[in-house]
């Protein structure tokens, strides 16, 4: 009896879910169908935001959703884009490639033509072929893998952040050219982003021949103790550490380095150039160099956006908020300029129209990278990142 009852309920529930899933889709089709024929009659413009929105990487993905919502709100207050109300459709992928393909096909099936995302390079690489086939414009606030744009395989892909190679070069050049260090220990967090940065940096240093890479190693992210690798850096005689990764690990390493009396230059990447790093590392953050897009604090658009965020969500914006904001701005602006969501027109508009964004005044080059987004080196001084001149 009980078994029967249970299986029946389950079957009904599954069937129901399936029906809901399909029902939704059909409604969507009905709503979208007239839009294809007469854009003016359509009421809404759906902006997909894909990325990690749950799971342990959620903190990198959620700020972009907030950013998109803020930008959408701004446009909607002005009467929408070409009369279309902007609607933000978040789509979680937990930064997993397989979930990213699910998210992408879902967005494609719902006839979304603009997507902000994905957050992680791996997920982006998995999802892009699907968008490419469906002619969806994709703009990532955070995927920095060099090959995404430079390989030329994804003409529908844009990003509001610069990529590993440029960043690695910037960091390496700063180390050898400005700091004039001779022995560099390159450390990364074994992640896609961190290792990409570290490898670019290593290559750049080796090609520059001004300094030597004395050590190239990955650390285990989430570890409680990095003393062994720090002792190793010490033993290698390095006078500078180049670290690729995110702020949680960076802060742990810096703090523990100082505890062990190792006070050498620490150069790192945009994933660390976040105020959270300074809070996490406290006084030990002082003097750390990080490369990052030349923006933010003194950028008017950013200040306004951050204030909006504070008002709307009651907290300071998180990682990649500025980039996500910029992505939403440029995409919606392109639609407005193109007059429709037609793929070719939107792409053309993205490549020609400058927009004032939190990451600067940008438009996109032929490969999809934002022109005007480059890297500068910042240093923590008195609890703040300031531009190194």
């Amino acid at each position, binding site marked *: 009896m009980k078994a029967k009852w249970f*299986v*029946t309920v389950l079957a009904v529930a599954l069937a129901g879910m399936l029906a809901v899933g399909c029902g939704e889709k059909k409604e969507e089709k009905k709503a979208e169908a007239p839009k294809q024929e007469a854009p003016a009659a359509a009421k809404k413009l759906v902006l997909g935001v894909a990325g990690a929105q749950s799971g342990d990487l959620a903190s990198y993905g959620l700020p972009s959703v907030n950013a998109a919502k803020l930008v959408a709100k701004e446009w909607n207050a002005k009467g929408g884009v070409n009369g279309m109300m902007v609607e933000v459709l978040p789509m979680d992928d937990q930064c997993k490639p*397989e979930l990213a393909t*699910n998210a992408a096909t879902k967005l*494609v099936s719902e006839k979304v033509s603009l997507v902000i995302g994905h957050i992680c390079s791996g997920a982006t690489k998995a999802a892009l072929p699907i968008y490419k*086939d469906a002619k969806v414009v994709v703009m990532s606030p955070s995927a920095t893998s060099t090959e995404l744009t430079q390989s030329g395989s994804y003409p529908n892909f844009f990003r509001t952040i610069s990529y590993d190679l440029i960043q690695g070069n910037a960091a390496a050049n700063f180390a050898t050219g400005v700091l004039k260090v001779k022995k560099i220990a390159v450390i990364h967090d074994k992640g*896609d982003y961190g290792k990409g940065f570290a490898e670019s940096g290593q290559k750049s240093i080796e090609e520059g021949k001004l300094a030597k890479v004395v050590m190239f190693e990955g650390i285990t992210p989430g570890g409680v103790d990095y003393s062994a690798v720090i002792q190793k850096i010490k033993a290698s005689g390095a006078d500078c550490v180049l670290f690729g990764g995110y702020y949680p690990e960076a802060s742990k390493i810096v703090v523990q380095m100082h505890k062990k009396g190792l006070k050498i230059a620490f150069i790192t990447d945009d994933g660390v150039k976040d105020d959270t790093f300074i809070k996490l590392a406290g006084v030990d953050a002082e003097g750390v160099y990080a490369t990052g897009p030349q923006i933010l604090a003194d950028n008017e658009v950013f200040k306004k956006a951050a204030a909006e965020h504070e008002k709307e969500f009651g907290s300071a914006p998180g990682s990649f908020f500025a980039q996500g904001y910029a992505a939403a701005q440029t995409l919606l602006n392109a639609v407005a300029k193109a007059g429709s969501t037609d793929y070719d027109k939107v792409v053309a508009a993205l490549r020609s129209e400058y927009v004032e964004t939190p990451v600067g005044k940008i438009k996109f080059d032929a490969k999809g990278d934002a022109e005007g987004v480059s890297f500068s080196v910042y240093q923590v001084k008195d609890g703040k990142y300031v531009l190194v001149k």
Partner: protein
Amino acid sequence: MKDTLMRYVVKLVRQALVASIWLSFLTLPIMVIRVDTIEQTVTWRWMHLAYMAVGSFVLALAWYAMMDRRDRGQAKKDLETVERVSALSQFLSDPRFAKPLMAFGFLVAAAFPWFFSLYQTNILVSAMIYVVLGLGLNITVGLAGLLDLGYVAFYAVGAYTYALLNHHFHLGFWAVLPLGAVLGAFFGILLGFPVLRLRGDYLAIVTLGFGQIIRLVLENWGDFSYGPSGISNIDRPGLFGINYSVEQATTYIYYIMLALVILTIFVTARLKDSRIGRAWLALREDEIACQAMGIDNTRAKLMAFALGATLAGLMGVVFAAKTTFINPASFTFMESAMILAIVVLGGMGSVLGVILGAFMLMLLPEYLRAFSEYRMLIFGATMVLIMVFRPEGLVRAKRKVYKINVEAAG
């Protein structure tokens, strides 16, 4: 009658009240206080406490009512010596109904991509991959009782086999598919040997370690595996050199998967009731008695590992072809745990159960997208609830009833 009902309700409400007060107290600091050590601010959110109190009261009410039902059912079952077979499963096992039902199911499955969107087809392909993975792990864990927490390693082996061979030598999907299976089996045996002596949870931790080792090697040995940045632009399966669009390719993979699922169901169902399958069951039930009855435990274990791994290797190839991109992050311990959850939630040893489990665990999060932020919360809670109320899984494994040749038996 009315009186007992009243008393029952009062008892339930009282229990639920106590539970709700306890849970509210328990969650008080975390629900109410939010300390931001970055901004040095403390936020008090007292409304959350009210939500929690009301919510937990309702949930506790449902919990105790269900619990009561469960315990009464349990007590009833203890009194009976003969296992009861539910009307539904009787219905399902009756060939008169089962055959047309299966045919109908097959027709629906075959027609699916023509009536539903790319997204629906795509997540169904994912679900089917996990059906096969579940059935594979079901051999190792469900039938042979070897708790394998590193199953995803074989999945990774298959996926990287295809990705690397495709990347370097442009080998096609069909050429690599059998190779993935063979390599999967090879690694299955490789893992099987050192762990033969271990039992229970020691086996679990070693397999977990094995899974981690494979992933870490893929992550760190960049020259071989391209490290954490993974391998992209893997070819989708083609046929006679035709290039498909994403939609067509997904449909194509859908049918490949449908065929593989049917094949796997066929193979595992047959294995389950074969000489080998019985040996696995015996191994699971009692290792010592099993060996004492003349079964070569070593062989049976290795075979279980190898067969499970073969299916995982096979699925790895399909996975790589489907997502066109793989990196080590897809093969974490959590993935192994998910596949294990499919097996256990569905019902260990039951083919139908594993299929249900896979569909549930893979489709539930997709259809729960509407609740996006809360979906993993609901997911975790569902896992606990199913285990508490149906600890043997959704479908209990049934043993075959053999036909006896009466003449021979005399």
